[in-house]
């Protein structure tokens, strides 16, 4: 956490997750004390293998946990200086934090335009049409697709989901695995646009990913989770050069090839638990 502390001095966090524990169905403990800070205007990534609790952390932040019978039993979450851990999902959106859920989750039986309009549901101003143009500026492909959103390709659906989030004019967007099911070329494109939106609009991004390679390239700071805990954190540079991260998440690492047996015991020894 010392690295996080130095980070704190340079930029004030827009989102602070403080030592939260999450329990599903009142018995299954998924998170065991997760803490993270997201500085305003930056891209932060949350990495980790399947089942580490990344998505659960996001849902705890966005309040969607309550729709899945989950509960934050300990710790607190602060967004823009306000406690949001007990808020329900629609109030979190109103406070300026928007989550793009895993698997895109667009409304398939509506057109892309209707999906975009729904993104602006919480807004009351009259600039919605201008913002639709802004979304088309980032994702020109969406403008051509006037049919039902269900017929869009996976990449276009992901773009629509991100565009829909932009329509809410949020201060921060949490993206849950935007690279899921996309071709490497599309992943690159989507991450490029995420980075661009962050730079143009100053929207803070929290990026949950398994694709560490791309995520770390887009992010300024990263957290690595395993089995419901944050096990490592650091700046982009620190993580990219960390031997363990190279070994487990980026591939490669040590130059000389190890025997399979040696690799296995090495992994077991080097687990952060």
């Amino acid at each position: 956490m010392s690295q996080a502390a130095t980070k704190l001095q340079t930029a004030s966090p827009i989102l602070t997750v403080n030592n939260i524990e999450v329990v599903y169905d009142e018995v299954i403990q998924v998170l065991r004390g997760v803490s993270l800070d997201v500085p305003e205007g930056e891209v932060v990534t949350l990495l980790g293998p399947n089942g580490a609790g990344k998505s659960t952390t996001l849902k705890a932040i966005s309040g969607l946990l309550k729709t899945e019978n989950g509960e934050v039993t300990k710790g607190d979450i602060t967004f823009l200086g306000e406690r949001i851990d007990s808020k329900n999902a629609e109030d979190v959106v109103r406070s300026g934090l928007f989550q793009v859920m895993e698997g895109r989750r667009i409304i398939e039986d509506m057109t892309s335009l209707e999906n975009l309009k729904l993104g602006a549901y919480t807004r009351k101003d009259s600039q919605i049409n201008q913002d639709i143009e802004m979304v088309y500026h980032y994702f020109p492909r969406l403008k051509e697709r006037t049919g039902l959103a269900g017929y869009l390709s996976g990449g276009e659906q992901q773009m629509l989901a991100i565009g829909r989030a932009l329509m809410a004019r949020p201060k921060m967007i949490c993206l849950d695995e935007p690279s899921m099911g996309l071709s490497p070329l599309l992943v690159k494109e989507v991450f490029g646009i995420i980075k661009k939106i962050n730079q143009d609009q100053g929207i803070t991004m929290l990026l949950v990913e398994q694709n560490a390679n791309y995520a770390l390239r887009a992010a300024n700071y990263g957290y690595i989770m395993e089995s419901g805990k944050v096990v490592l954190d650091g700046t982009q540079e620190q993580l990219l050069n960390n031997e363990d991260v190279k070994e487990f998440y980026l591939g490669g690492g040590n130059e000389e090839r190890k025997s399979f047996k040696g690799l296995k015991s090495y992994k077991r020894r080097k687990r952060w638990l």
Partner: protein
Amino acid sequence: MNFELLTQLIVNGLIVGLLYGVVGMCFVLVYKSTQIVNFAQGEFLLIGAWVCWALLIYLELPFIVGFLLTMAFMAVFGVMLQMIVLRPMIGEPIISVIMVTIGLSIFFQALMKWIFGVSAQSFPKVFETESIQILGLHIETAYLMSTVIALIIMVAFYLFFKHSKYGLAMRATAFDQQIAQSLGISVKQVFAMSWGIAATVSATAGVVIAMVSGVSNSLSIIGIKVFPAVILGGLDSIIGAIVGGLIIGVLENVAEFFDSQYLHVGNMYDIAPFYVLLIILWFKPYGLFGTKDIERI
């Protein structure tokens, strides 16, 4: 064969069928957005008709004022009903919620009997002329009004769901409640809104039917008659509800015609729609326009 009578009956069937369609749309609306099969749908018609009747008779309001006040009352009534009775049932097994709506149906029927008595009351005269002749067909003025109102409601439904923010929010909620919440839509608000709309629109149909045939407890039977219509159309299709309503409306009149002319079985008007219901459940249980994976009760 008496063609004149048959055409007359078919036209009547289309007019009444349009009203079934409107009530069916409300039924589908509640089912789609809240997954509740509302057995108290017919009572919305009954309450609306009685309230409008009371406003016209006791307060002697002009019809249009009484009608608008009734609609406003029913909107509040529908929202309150959802908030007080049905909101605590969110998350309970579907069968329990359905039992609650059956209970509501019985309760409101009894309440209306208690307040307004058991005998049928005729509606105060709204139009000077009771009926007019169009192309040799004899059409009640109230039915003409009902056709106009029904068409207006249908267009309003279309515009509401296609273009308004709240209509889109209701469609999003019907598609996936979690997605709706992630967009900042309050699902509770959508539920209350759908009950409010259903109560208001159904009450409109109730008032129109009461204008022609008087106010009595038998009005709530429309709520049951709408079943064959929505199941024929598909329980989760708004278009299906309209088509189903028209088919059932014509069918019961045609059945009545053949019965009175040839068969002499009696009471085909009320029974025929339910034969159709049985046949549909046998051969096409998801209706003409319904999605295949919806739950059957």
